[in-house]
């Protein structure tokens, strides 16, 4: 009796093991830490890849839970795309430690660190946590600048081709297609925002600085006094007077940030609160990178264009 049960368990395990090892899914399994990177991987990988994102589009990418299902996802991955610059420092290392997957080890062809090759901004001259939770490698929210995205997608295409040479032509063609579309869109977005050059915007966190730099806008101040530090009444009073003096009329918040704080400030400055996610998938009809940027640029241009 005991023997039969043992044999059955062994058989079940064997089947499970062989099932996992069988290459019935010829697609390359790509795991991206955040949905924006996943969207780029889909654009480049097309039908040759199967893409999963670890973080939800609506959640704070700095504070994702290192939940065990992510270990399984990473264990089966052929390629891992991370933002880098310490964005995932709080949750990716323990996942990778448990995932025991050599294919996505640091330095392997299956590991893409998106921040490599990006001209990082706000790299601190000194490491000092009294200035808030500043990433030592610079501001990690660089994908809201389409020019940075061009660097990242080229890197993704390169790594995918190394991991999966038989589809290299597909990746090359997709890269060409995506970059062309992005260039056309970039020109469009620049035209849309051109009338507002020098306009001052307020954000909750320093997550739209690369975007502002690209399109000639200025992030006047953030609602957080320092990165990762909750807004204090004194700081908000300062933001309000700065906004009044500069006639700033737009506050951008992401789905996971405290909208109430933004609303309070907006009431006193006659500003508009714009809900703009940095991640595709956080809103209906915004499922890829270009749609997300379209939404960002259009919403912002509309708000800046409104008469006070």
């Amino acid at each position: 009796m005991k023997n039969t049960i043992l044999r059955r368990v062994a058989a079940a395990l064997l089947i499970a093991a062989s099932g996992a090892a069988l290459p019935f899914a010829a697609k390359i399994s790509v795991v991206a830490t955040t949905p924006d990177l996943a969207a780029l991987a889909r654009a480049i990988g097309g039908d040759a890849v199967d893409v999963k994102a670890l973080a939800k589009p609506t959640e704070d990418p700095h504070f994702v839970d290192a939940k065990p299902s992510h270990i399984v996802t990473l264990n089966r991955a052929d390629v891992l795309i991370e933002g880098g610059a310490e964005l995932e420092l709080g949750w990716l290392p323990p996942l990778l430690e448990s995932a025991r997957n050599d294919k996505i080890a640091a330095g392997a062809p299956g590991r893409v660190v998106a921040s490599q090759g990006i001209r990082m901004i706000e790299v601190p001259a000194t490491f000092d946590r009294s200035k808030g939770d500043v990433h030592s490698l610079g501001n990690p929210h660089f994908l809201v600048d389409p020019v940075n995205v061009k660097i990242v997608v080229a890197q993704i295409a390169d790594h995918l081709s190394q991991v999966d040479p038989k589809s290299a032509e597909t990746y090359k063609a997709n890269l060409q297609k995506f970059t062309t579309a992005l260039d056309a869109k970039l020109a469009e977005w620049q035209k849309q925002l051109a009338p507002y050059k020098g306009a001052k915007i307020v954000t909750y966190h320093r997550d739209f600085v690369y975007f502002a730099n690209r399109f000639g806008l200025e992030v006047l101040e953030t609602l957080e006094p320092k990165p990762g530090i909750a807004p204090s009444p004194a700081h908000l009073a300062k933001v309000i007077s700065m906004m009044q003096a500069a006639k700033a009329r737009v506050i951008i918040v992401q789905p996971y940030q405290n909208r109430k704080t933004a609303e309070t400030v907006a009431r006193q400055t006659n500003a508009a609160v714009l809900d703009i996610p940095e991640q595709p998938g956080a809103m209906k009809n915004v499922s890829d990178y270009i749609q997300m940027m379209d939404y960002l640029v259009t919403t912002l241009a509309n708000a800046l264009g409104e008469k006070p």
Partner: protein
Amino acid sequence: MKKLVQAATAVVAAMIWSSHVAAQTTDSTARRQQRMLDSLVIVIKSLQDRIDSLGRARPDSAAATQPSAAPQAPVRSGSGYMNIGFVTLADAGWSSEPDVGSLQVGDHDPAVRGFTLPNAEVTLDGAVDPYFRGFSNIVLKLDSNGETGVELEEAYLLTTSLPWNLQIKAGQFFAEFGRQNPQHPHSWAFVDQPLALNRMFGPDGLRSQGARISWLLPTNWYAEAMLGVFNSAGGTAFSFRSDESSEIHGGVSEERGVKSGGDLLLVPRIATSMDLTATQVLLLGASAAFGPNNSGPNAKTQVYGADAYWKWKSATAHQGFPFVSSQSEVLFRRYDAAERQSAENPGVTLPSERLRDSGAYSELLWGIKPRWVAGIRGDYAAGDDASFDAVLRADRYRMSPNVTWYPTEFSKLRLQYNYDHRSGIGRDHSLWFQFEFLLGAHAAHKF
């Protein structure tokens, strides 16, 4: 920087030479020196400007106008080959029990009325080479007399590239028994060690020198099987060949060495997890520990445990809040005590007997809004009757509500009240304030 220094040396040398030449003509010594000083000031200023401009020339100034999508040279990440962190936990408070150590039994609990510094920990970790990662925790602690104690809490290697989803850990480390035993006090949700863990594994938890193999099962959901093999001696192998064993079995401890593989400590564990919904995760585990005890030459101990952890986190969580989580563990111990001489009354022989202990705790945490967590924990531990009385095996329960404020991830302030009931002793009330700070690398927590 080297270039700057070279340039500066050259300029200064030129100044000295030119002023020297000038001195041979008409200038008085004083004026000559003044001029030299002035020119040095100019040189220093220009150097300062250059240094400042280098500091200012962070790439962002150019980013706005940089139209090309040419990749930059890779950014150097990290500052060394090792992450270094330092965590200090300190407690302050009062208890109705004057002998606080008899009430707060964990090694990293508050130890006295007033102030305790039970845990100042240096954490080191990094990639050893392409095959191993290395970790170490060195703990410094002040006892109730303010004397410093040092313990090598953990020092182990972890393989990174074994085939078949296997992984080996080797060195000195916490046994992966249940949920909280392998965690460091810094990641506990309460000021003190749960009673059940203290009862089974002693004040420091179950850790020893050994090796552990783990297999990540090829299932579509998370399932991991582990087997640890450890030395069974020492204070941190409490229910086994520990020096404190006589407190458990009441007899004179047998001097028994390691004669066969059976004298080692075995710790198997299986854990599994599933995402119940997009925002809810459940993690279940079952563990056991089998090893010799020193009540007699062939005596054995078995400990069994089950653990559950559930967490809900909002889909729009900001800095990880709001969330609700629940963590529970149940443990049983079967301690087969051999016939032994009583430690208290040397003439008396205690019969061979089976000592059964059980314990459980359950905690519920509510992350109300960013940085604020309210929690409540219920604690219970009990032992059956034996041929002797052991304080260590007496029935006991405890209720602990607490509230924690995290100014950032690098510091925390916690206030906890303990309502204690010890069978045969009575009720006690304690109020503890805990403060923690963290410097350097913050090793990310496992789920």
